[in-house]
């Protein structure tokens, strides 16, 4: 079956540009997560949605980062005024449900590699 898809796979931006990264979760998955993976490191949590509600955005590194999931399916991670330190792979994951201290398996997309020049 179809997995989590992300687009674009690669994005090169000039410093100061705005970018938008898209995530299509597995159909029927209620929970959606965004992670940031710097080179040579493990993924780090950015934000979490339950349907259309953003329940946790504690991992967003600055107010330049914004995420939405308006209809409870597709999600977009937007980065305004990109900086070189934003260069990383941005991973999206979805699961059937993750709440109340329990979780189903999170399935990851291929990621978007963002390079800020």
């Amino acid at each position: 079956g179809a997995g989590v898809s992300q687009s674009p796979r690669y994005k090169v931006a000039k410093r100061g540009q705005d970018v938008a990264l898209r995530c299509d979760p597995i159909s029927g998955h209620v929970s959606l997560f965004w992670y940031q993976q710097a080179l040579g490191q493990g993924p780090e949590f950015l934000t979490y949605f339950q349907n259309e509600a953003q329940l946790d955005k504690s991992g967003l590194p600055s107010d330049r980062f914004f995420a939405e999931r308006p209809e409870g399916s597709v999600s977009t991670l937007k980065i305004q005024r990109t900086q070189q330190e934003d260069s990383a792979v941005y991973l999206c994951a979805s699961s059937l449900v993750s709440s109340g201290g329990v979780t189903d398996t999170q399935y990851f997309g291929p990621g978007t590699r963002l390079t800020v020049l």
Partner: protein
Amino acid sequence: AQSVAQPEDQVNVAEGNPLTVKCTYSVSGNPYLFWYVQYPNRGLQFLLKYITGDNLVKGSYGFEAEFNKSQTSFHLKKPSALVSDSALYFCAVWSGGYNKLIFGAGTRLAVHP
């Protein structure tokens, strides 16, 4: 604090030999533990998980992991390594209080012919 440690940056093993990739964790409450594998320019692929029940968990591609509560460990194992197992492996723990996966730094597995 919730954390995951993968003490080895790289593990080298000869094809056909058993392999172990180590993981220890620190989390309050009952841990949900996961192993993922990442190939170059690919996302994370789920291998296996421990939620409850038997301490030995079997997963994809012949991998298994043993949950040890007293040692707070969840080591990944495979009886006979393949060259195609060469990849980056991540251990993760679900932090229910924070609704997120916490990942280790990763261990690169190199299987030599």
